[in-house]
């Protein structure tokens, strides 16, 4: 037998106690929606997971009304210290139920259990802990003494990190004193609904957190609702643009975290083995369903062949399969629709003359899967070098000088993140300074921390989530606005230390 064919090590689903049907979570309780309920399936097996309620306009009204009541009567009047207590309680409950949440996330989203267990859920807890600490320290956000919350926040989140994106949205909003109505993505509602149970368990006042499920029109109704003060959206640039239009001319505040086509720049003096890991982590983490994924590899021409050679060897050790198996590296693509888009763009890449290489792996019979793929010979004019594929597909381009690397990295309508790999510290600083991206990782990639602001340049959106900037986005800027404008969002350079 081959040792490398590790025996199956599936995480048990016994810990999950799912209901067959989930309603909308409004005013502290689950209730039926007025739309036609829809099924949530597991993308790895296409099996039915649960039936989810569909919120129509009247449900959106009810949710916003509940949030408004909670805002007026309790949450905005509560002391920051007490709000913090609730948030700490939620953070602890997330930790207590972490295994259950990880299993639910992998089941519903298709991401490998090792990622939901070791990345998503721990970060969710970290986000609540971090913002719980801010709740009684709002005087120090930089907006003057006792800044006021905005009111009711409408939050719409994507399917790639369902629970983590919920935490990014809800934790700062509640810490600042807002109440929220959140809509998870249609294909990944499950963990948001488990979170609603945690909200009940934490005994949060009814209406502070409302979770409504549904598809695009539910989101549009929520965002467009007249009694909403703040809109926060994470998702595609096209939907973000529509929301910006919808919200324009109203008093609603808006933050958008949209697509990306990040450049991961590998210089010829890079720590090569760690750079290979960083490339893999950059684009194959979460099946490439990451807005800040390092989907454009910019590698110095002198080491191109060696890097590609090593990368292919490394990719051949990735395990694709059952997301609940603890040894799975690459899980399922979230939906048939997304799989189709990945296929379509990959085919375009091939038609445009790029060279395609796919890791040899067995694709399971059912479910949605895409084997890790690399395109070499990619030019800046190819569609796969410009458009966000949002899948496990890497486009490799080359450069000759640092100036060319910077020019190519910035030559995109997006600007969410970038990576730099070099052993030379001064180069890291010089290049990071010129990259137009909200986050620049040096000798690492896809690292997240609640204290670090995250957000985009250009078509990757505006506003920052995380850190002090993240909570400022949920607070009123004291008048006169110009006098105490919030500090401009800065890019974050996180440095992987070299021993």
């Amino acid at each position, binding site marked *: *037998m*081959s*040792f*490398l*064919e*590790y*025996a*199956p*090590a599936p995480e048990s689903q016994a810990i999950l106690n799912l209901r067959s049907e989930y309603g909308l979570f409004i005013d502290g309780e689950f209730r039926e929606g007025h739309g036609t309920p829809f099924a949530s399936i597991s993308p790895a097996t296409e099996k039915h997971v649960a039936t989810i309620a569909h919120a129509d306009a009247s449900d959106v009204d009810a949710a916003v009304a509940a949030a408004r009541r909670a805002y007026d009567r309790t949450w905005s009047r509560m002391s920051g210290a007490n709000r913090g207590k609730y948030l700490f309680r939620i953070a602890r409950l997330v930790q207590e139920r972490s295994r259950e949440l990880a299993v639910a996330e992998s089941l519903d989203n298709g991401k490998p259990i*090792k990622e939901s267990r*070791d990345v998503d859920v721990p970060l969710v807890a970290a986000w609540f802990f971090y913002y719980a600490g801010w709740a009684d320290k709002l005087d120090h956000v930089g907006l003057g003494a006792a800044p006021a919350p905005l009111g009711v926040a409408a939050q719409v989140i994507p399917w790639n990190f369902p629970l983590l994106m919920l935490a990014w949205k809800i934790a700062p909003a509640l810490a600042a004193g807002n109440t929220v109505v959140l809509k998870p993505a249609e294909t990944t509602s499950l963990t948001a609904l488990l979170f609603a149970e945690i909200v009940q368990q934490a005994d949060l006042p009814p209406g502070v957190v409302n979770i409504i499920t549904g598809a695009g029109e539910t989101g549009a109704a929520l965002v467009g609702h007249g009694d909403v003060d703040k809109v926060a959206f994470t998702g595609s640039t096209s939907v973000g643009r529509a929301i910006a239009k919808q919200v324009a001319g109203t008093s609603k505040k808006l933050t958008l975290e949209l697509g990306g086509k990040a450049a991961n720049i590998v210089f010829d*003096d*890079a*720590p*090569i*083995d*760690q*750079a290979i*890991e*960083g490339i893999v982590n950059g684009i194959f983490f979460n099946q490439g369903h990451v807005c800040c994924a390092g989907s454009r590899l910019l590698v110095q021409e002198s080491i191109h062949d060696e890097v590609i050679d090593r990368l292919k060897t490394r990719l051949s*050790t990735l395990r694709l399969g059952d997301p609940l198996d*603890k*040894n799975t590296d690459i899980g399922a693509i979230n939906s048939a629709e997304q799989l189709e888009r990945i296929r379509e763009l990959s085919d375009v890449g091939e038609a445009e003359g790029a060279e395609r290489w796919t890791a040899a792996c067995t694709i399971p019979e059912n479910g949605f899967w895409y084997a890790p793929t690399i395109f070499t010979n990619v030019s800046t004019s190819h569609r796969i070098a410009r458009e966000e594929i949002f899948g496990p597909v890497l486009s490799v381009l080359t450069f000759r000088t640092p100036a060319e690397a910077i020019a190519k990295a910035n030559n995109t309508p997006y600007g969410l993140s970038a990576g730099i790999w070099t*052993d030379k510290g001064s180069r890291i600083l010089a290049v990071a300074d010129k990259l137009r991206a909200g986050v620049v990782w040096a*000798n*690492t990639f896809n690292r997240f921390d609640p204290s670090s602001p995250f957000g985009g340049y250009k078509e990757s959106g505006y506003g920052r989530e995380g850190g002090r900037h993240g909570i400022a986005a949920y607070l009123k800027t004291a008048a006169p606005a110009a006098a105490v404008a919030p500090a401009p969002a800065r890019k974050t350079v996180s440095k*992987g*230390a*070299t*021993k």
Partner: protein
Amino acid sequence: MTSTQIVPGERAVALLGGEANDANLRRYLHGIPGVDAVGLEQRAAGLGTRSIKTTSKAWALDRIIGLVDLTTLEGADTPGKVRSLVAKAVTPDPADPSCPRVAAVCVYGDMVPHAVQALGSAHGDPDQGKIAVAAVATAFPSGRSSRSIKLEDTADAVAAGADEIDMVIDRGAFLAGRFGQVYDEIVAVKEACRRPDGTYAHLKVILETGELNTYDNVRRASWLGILAGGDFIKTSTGKVAPAATLPVTLLMLEVVRDWHRLSGEKVGVKPAGGIRASKDAIKYLVTVAETVGEEWLTPHLFRFGASSLLNDVLLQRQKMTTGHYSGPDYVTID
């Protein structure tokens, strides 16, 4: 041992394109890409999360036993202690005859005759199910002695029947940048491993990574050990903390992998010291398999330098057959 014989000095001249002196070695070793400590440790931690269950675990436990250099390196070692160690090496689990034997026993040079005698017909090539005798040499563990003493130490052990020599590099010279001196010494020790019939005892080059301190140094020393003709590169003496760690072993495996890509030759890796639990040893197997490939999981390419590890593996092994844990009195002390 089945692998091809390596002639000392041959590797370096071909690669450096010149003599292996301080300047040439420095130029080469400092031209190797650096190591990012955060990234290396992250990768090692990632490999450590592999979940090895049921049939894979059973295979792994048996294989770990077959890769152990069962070791006693104490000032208090006596012929009696060595005989006891050998008996344990031959029959790790008296209650289970299906239990594999270890790869080798590892002792000080003066204990080699006792080990050879005690092994008797069991002495031989671990690839053929026999047990080799490894001796530490070259003024182990510090290596602070004259070149002539080190070479004599080595030659003595080989003459007494040692199949493998575990030498220490001169860390002082390495840290002072005298790469040529470290290189020459390894070459000379390798030459001292030569038997009258022209074959060589296998040479394991101990880097003592705990004293080299940085991953960049470990990587350079690994290259140096291989270039000078080492059959194995080994992490530690076990006398300095930290001894073997998973990131250091991963790094050395990456060098071995790169050497194989470059030359087609297969060099072995031996983490030694500090690996006490089966669970940890399994992480090392995973790291080997996913870095250089499963074919490295054989006694002439991978070893564990350990003593207490064996009993933990035996307890785990018993647990897999009986379904319950026993205790330290259900495995033998050596």
